[in-house]
Structure formats: structure tokens, C-alpha cells
């Protein structure tokens, strides 16, 4: 047993160091190409899908030998590992989303749940698969839980609240407005599937992409929400209604005029969305200009410049 631990240590320590080194190098290389800050890295949490693969092979081996008990044990353990890994990955994605936003509710503790399920799977595998004493299996489970915590951390707690310029807490209102806008975009995308015209579909896809970009800007700075109210309540909702109506009607009635009208409306919507995006960007520039002006005035007054 002692020799086994020595061998495992000799293999695991350099392997872990190598993985950390490669991850760091890849992240440094990827920084140059990163578009949106806080985007969820696709490889995070994949280790928990790969490490338990021997349990799946053990289940297949049990099946090949006709050992139903072994097959059941290993299949349950692998299922738990898989469930835990999925929960963990979902938790990591939710955390990235939480970090990106300036206003957000406290996320569900998916990471903690995932870590707990992985720890349970590890303990069960050590007990039933590797035939360890139950006390040793509990140690395996606790060490796995600690490993998950140290590697991935626990879930963020507490909502990121937002107060407007009058000091009112508008967190729920902001989140509801953003969720409603997201539902409208999803409805436009659903309706697009029922329209069999490549040109119109292309326009609708562009409109949905533009709307998502505007929504991302609003999520990052909810102060813009007041300025974008017309976009959310009138244009986005209108675009949704028109698209859904066209998707329902054009299949039953072949009317070239209707198609032309719809094309014109979509062109107008595209223009309006582009304007809205430009306005939000300009507001950011104006805000920054004002901040620079205030700072330089303060520095001059205090005799620094």
C-alpha cells in the first residue's frame, strides 16, 4: 500500500504541475483573441468527465464477464460521477454569467451540489468498486470534496443589487426587463425556423444578434436601461409580434406584397437596432468624457497638474 501511494504521488504531482502549466500557457495565448471579458472557458470542468472514465470501462468489463452486481455498482458510480460533473459545469457557467453582470441574483449552488455528488461517487467507487474499508471510502469522499472546493471554489453568495440615481433598489425590475427582452429574442429565433426564405431568415438572424449585443451592453451597465426603454418595450416587442405573425400567415397565404412589406419592416428594425447600439456606445463615450473632465479639473484645483 505504501509503495502504491509512493508511485501514485510520483506520477500525480508532476502530472498536476504539467496540467496547470499548460492551462496557464493556453490562457495567456488566448488572452489576445478574447472578445468578451468573462466569457465561460469551454474546457473548464472537463477533467471531471475524463477522470471517472475507468469506472465506465469497469462497468463494461463487468458486463463482459457476466457480473451483474459489478455492472450495477460501476454503472451507478459512473452515473453519479457524470451527474456531478454536469452540475459542476453548470455551476461554473452560472458563476461566469454572475461575474459578467453588474446586477444579478445569487445563483443556485450548482458547484457545491456537483462537488457533493462527485464526493459521494468517489466514496462509493472506493467502497464498492475498489473494495476499500468504509472508513477509507469516507476519507476518499472527503478528500474529493476538498479537492473540488480548492480547485473550483464554492458558489457566489448574495445578489448583486442595483440602485438607480434616486437611491431606489431596482434590481428586480432590471432583471425582469432583461428576462423579458431575452424571451422576445428567443421568440424571434423560434419564429425564424418557420419562415422558409433564406434572405428573410438572414435578416432575422442579424436582428436577433444585434438585439443580443444591446442586451449584453445593458447587462453590463444597467444605468442604460432607462435610455433603452423604448427599444425594449416598443421595438423589440414589435419585432417579435410582426415576426410571429408573418411566420403564421405566410404558410397559408402566398402574398408577394406581404413579403415586401415584411422585408421593409425588417430593414427598418435593423436600422433602429443599429442606431440604438450606437446611442449606447456614444453615451458611454460621453460619460467617460465627463469623468475625465471632472478628474482633470480636480487635479488642476489641487495643483497636481
Amino acid at each position, binding site marked *: 500500500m505504501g509503495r502504491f501511494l509512493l508511485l501514485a*504521488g510520483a506520477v500525480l504531482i508532476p502530472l498536476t504541475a504539467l496540467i496547470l502549466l499548460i492551462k496557464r500557457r493556453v490562457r495567456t495565448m488566448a488572452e489576445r483573441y478574447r472578445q468578451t471579458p468573462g466569457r465561460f472557458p469551454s474546457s473548464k470542468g472537463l477533467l*471531471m468527465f475524463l477522470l*471517472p*472514465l*475507468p469506472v465506465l470501462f*469497469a462497468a463494461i468489463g463487468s458486463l463482459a464477464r457476466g457480473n451483474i452486481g459489478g455492472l450495477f455498482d460501476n454503472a451507478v458510480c459512473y452515473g453519479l460521477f457524470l451527474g456531478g460533473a454536469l452540475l459542476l459545469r453548470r455551476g461554473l457557467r452560472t458563476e461566469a454569467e454572475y461575474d459578467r453582470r453588474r446586477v444579478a441574483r445569487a445563483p443556485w449552488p450548482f458547484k457545491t451540489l456537483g462537488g457533493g455528488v462527485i464526493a459521494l461517487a468517489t466514496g462509493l467507487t472506493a467502497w464498492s*468498486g475498489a473494495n476499500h474499508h468504509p472508513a477509507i471510502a469516507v476519507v476518499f469522499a472527503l*478528500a474529493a470534496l476538498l*479537492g473540488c472546493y480548492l*480547485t473550483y471554489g464554492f458558489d457566489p453568495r448574495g445578489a448583486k443589487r442595483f440602485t438607480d440615481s434616486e437611491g431606489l433598489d431596482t434590481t428586480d425590475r432590471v432583471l425582469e426587463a432583461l428576462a423579458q427582452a431575452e424571451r422576445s429574442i428567443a421568440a424571434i429565433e423560434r419564429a425564424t425556423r418557420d419562415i422558409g426564405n433564406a434572405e428573410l431568415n438572414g435578416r432575422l438572424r442579424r436582428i436577433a444578434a444585434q438585439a443580443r449585443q444591446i442586451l449584453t451592453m445593458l447587462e453590463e451597465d444597467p444605468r442604460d436601461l432607462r435610455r433603452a426603454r423604448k427599444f425594449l418595450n416598443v421595438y423589440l416587442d414589435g419585432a417579435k409580434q410582426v415576426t410571429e405573425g408573418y411566420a403564421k400567415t405566410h404558410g397559408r397565404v402566398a402574398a408577394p406584397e406581404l413579403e415586401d412589406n415584411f422585408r421593409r419592416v425588417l430593414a427598418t428594425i435593423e436600422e433602429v437596432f443599429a442606431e440604438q447600439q450606437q446611442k449606447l456606445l456614444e453615451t458611454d463615450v460621453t460619460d467617460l468624457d465627463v469623468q475625465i473632465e471632472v478628474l482633470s479639473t480636480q487635479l488642476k484645483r489641487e495643483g497636481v497638474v
Partner: protein
Amino acid sequence: MPAVLRKFIGLLLIFATVGVASCQALLAPWSPGALAIFSLLPH
């Protein structure tokens, strides 16, 4: 504790528990053969 060290220890623990338990579950049916590998190590 620095973040890199924390992650290093965490990964080490995950490999030592999840990885080892999984491999042992795979090797358990052939355990006499698996143990023979370790008997080849120097004393």
C-alpha cells in the same frame, strides 16, 4: 494561500481520489495481477 497553490493542491487531491478510486475499480477484478506490478518495485 495563493490561487495557483490552492488549485495545485485541489487538482492533486482530485487526481489522488477520483483518479485512483476509478483506476482501482477498473483493476479490482484483476487485483492479484495488478498487485504483482507493485511487487516489482525495489524494496
